């Protein structure tokens, strides 16, 4: 029933796609066929065993073509603390006129790029994920019409960050926004990319976002994502990173909004000497479900991967961290570490942590760890014995817990913004 509805919607779109390149049409067909065959994942699927998506599958989300009226006040607000290069995407549409982009990089609406510069995109589409059996990824490939292509030329050291704001003010209930983004950093280039997801209004909607990232030889990308969508929003996103020789990728995820939000990072250290650092903080309350998934594949020697995720969960919220590190036989001298720590602020909050290491090489340094606990009674006592009230003491301790993962040198410019999100969430919790 659900699958049929998507199939019908797909058929309707098909007629209008005659001008798309052959390769993309083929990818879309394959993706749709895969989705029809498999349908949505259930709790029986290994990758989805902790997160029930019935609320998404039963809602029958539908495309929304509307654009909200954007007052100067709203635009100003969205631009706030988004210095440097600023890209505005509203209800899935890239609004170039409200954006501010240096001429040194090439930023194109994905729909436009497909028609005018398909050769820039083709090599980067679906390149690593033939094996990923994921319904949401398939649907994204079959349906996407919006998103951006960002190309950073060789050797360019981009001083100002690229900040992409995805703002949603749904024009109807059960709207869905598929966004597909392709980011390519040329050899020896360096950039900082920030994605922010905000929304307005309380309509139920669904963000389905896929980013494909390529780091050519020696490229360096610092990536941050802030997801703070409304309480009725669903958010399922995956970021696929392909790293070539000696490249370096670091990421930070703040997941705090939405009813259900799932973020997956899939990194392939495809050539020698590549390094990645994946970090995240998930802050849940109410009945939120916040799901973090990572997959790092060490394919070649001398790769490094480091992961640190932290969760703060209150109410009846649920957190998931499922991280898998795969070290291929060829990937000697791999250095891979993974840690997940979560703090439960109520008796009814819950975290599922599942670290997995699969090592086929023999000369490696790998570790993983998980710790789930509650606020330490002795630490609370210490703060209260200094005159700090019980609630404030809890807030100070929880904030301290979060800081380890926020205070990263590459994110210095975002630190205050991130701390504000943390404090906003904690204030609700402890007052």
């Amino acid at each position: 029933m659900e699958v049929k509805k998507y199939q019908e919607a797909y058929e309707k779109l098909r007629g209008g796609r005659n001008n798309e390149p052959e390769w993309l049409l083929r990818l879309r067909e394959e993706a749709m066929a895969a989705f029809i065959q498999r349908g949505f994942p259930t709790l029986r699927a290994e990758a989805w065993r902790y997160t029930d998506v019935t609320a998404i599958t039963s809602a029958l989300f539908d495309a929304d073509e509307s654009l909200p009226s954007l007052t100067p006040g709203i635009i100003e607000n969205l631009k706030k603390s988004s210095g440097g290069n600023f890209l505005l995407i509203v209800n899935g549409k890239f609004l170039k006129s409200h954006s501010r982009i240096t001429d040194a990089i090439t930023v194109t609406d994905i729909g436009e790029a497909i028609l005018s510069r398909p050769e820039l995109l083709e090599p980067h589409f679906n390149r690593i994920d033939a094996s990923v059996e994921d319904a949401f990824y398939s649907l994204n490939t079959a349906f996407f019409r919006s998103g951006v292509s960002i190309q950073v030329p060789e050797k360019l050291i981009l001083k100002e960050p690229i900040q992409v704001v995805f703002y949603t003010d749904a024009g109807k209930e059960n709207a869905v926004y598929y966004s597909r983004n392709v980011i390519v950093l040329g050899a020896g280039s360096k950039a900082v990319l920030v994605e922010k997801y905000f929304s307005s209004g309380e309509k139920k909607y669904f963000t389905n976002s896929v980013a494909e990232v390529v780091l050519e030889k020696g490229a360096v990308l610092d990536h941050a994502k802030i997801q703070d969508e409304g309480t009725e929003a669903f958010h399922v996103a995956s970021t696929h990173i392909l790293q070539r020789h000696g490249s370096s990728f670091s990421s930070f995820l703040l997941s705090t909004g939405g009813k259900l939000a799932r973020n997956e990072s899939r990194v392939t250290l495809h050539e020698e000497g590549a390094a990645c650092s994946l970090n995240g903080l998930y802050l849940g309350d109410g009945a939120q479900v916040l799901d973090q998934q990572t997959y790092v594949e060490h394919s070649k020697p001398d790769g490094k991967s480091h992961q640190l995720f932290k969760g703060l969960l209150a109410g009846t919220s649920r957190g998931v961290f499922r991280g898998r590190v795969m070290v291929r036989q060829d990937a000697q001298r791999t250095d891979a570490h993974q840690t997940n720590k979560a703090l439960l602020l109520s008796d009814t909050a819950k975290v599922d942590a599942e670290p997995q290491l699969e090592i086929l090489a023999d000369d490696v340094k790998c570790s993983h760890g998980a710790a789930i606990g509650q606020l330490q009674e002795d630490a609370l006592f210490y703060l209260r014995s200094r005159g700090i009230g019980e609630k404030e003491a809890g807030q100070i301790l929880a904030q301290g817990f979060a800081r380890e993962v926020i205070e990263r040198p590459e994110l210095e410019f975002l630190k205050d913004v991130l701390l504000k999100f943390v404090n906003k969430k904690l204030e609700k919790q402890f007052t």
Partner: protein
Amino acid sequence: MLEIKDLHVSVEGVEILKGIDLTVNAGEVHAIMGPNGSGKSTLTRVLAGHPSYVVTRGSATYEGKDLFQMAIEDRARQGVFLAFQYPIDIPGVNNAYFLKSAVNETRKARGLEELDAMEFLEFLREKMKVVEMDESFLNRPVNEGFSGGEKKRNEILQLAALNPKLAILDETDSGLDIDALKIVSEGVNRLRSPERSFILVTHYQRMLNYITPDHVHVLMGGKIVLSGGKDLAFKLEEKGYEWVRV
């Protein structure tokens, strides 16, 4: 200032304090000595309000109020301070931020204006002189990576900053080398005043070489078995706790 009567305290169902009577008047320094396991730390923690310690009998009256009816933070705001034997590490919480929260919460409760960042730094610099601490301590997480001596100095810094009426020091001398012991003791001496009382809990007499107590009590088996003047401490040092037992 503080009047403890027939105090019985249990931890996890085991009775540790078995009837303590102690009266501390304003400006007095009381030393409580005793062997390991006699209940010294239990006494300090129950006064500060640690939730694991259950009062099964008796009372403690602080400035005319029932101490055991007061929340942990209210005791602190009204002038009870405990310097911990093992101050806990608090990763991610900046020492200056912690101290500022503590000072301002306390000031608020005492009807004083809160200090802003600049005023606080100035205020704290004065207090840091008391324990000869340098400013690098302020930007580190609370107690994290501090040596034993640094932790104890941080406790005395908090004592100086919070300006309590009743300061309870739980084995502040333990784990200190002689230089640190001197600094900490001199810090305490500078903070002595006719309005402020001290309870010094210690296993050894050596801290009392630097801080002269008005009264010395011996705590054994959960009871105060002997009280006297400062000379009692020397006697204990010389003869050991066994001497009291017989």
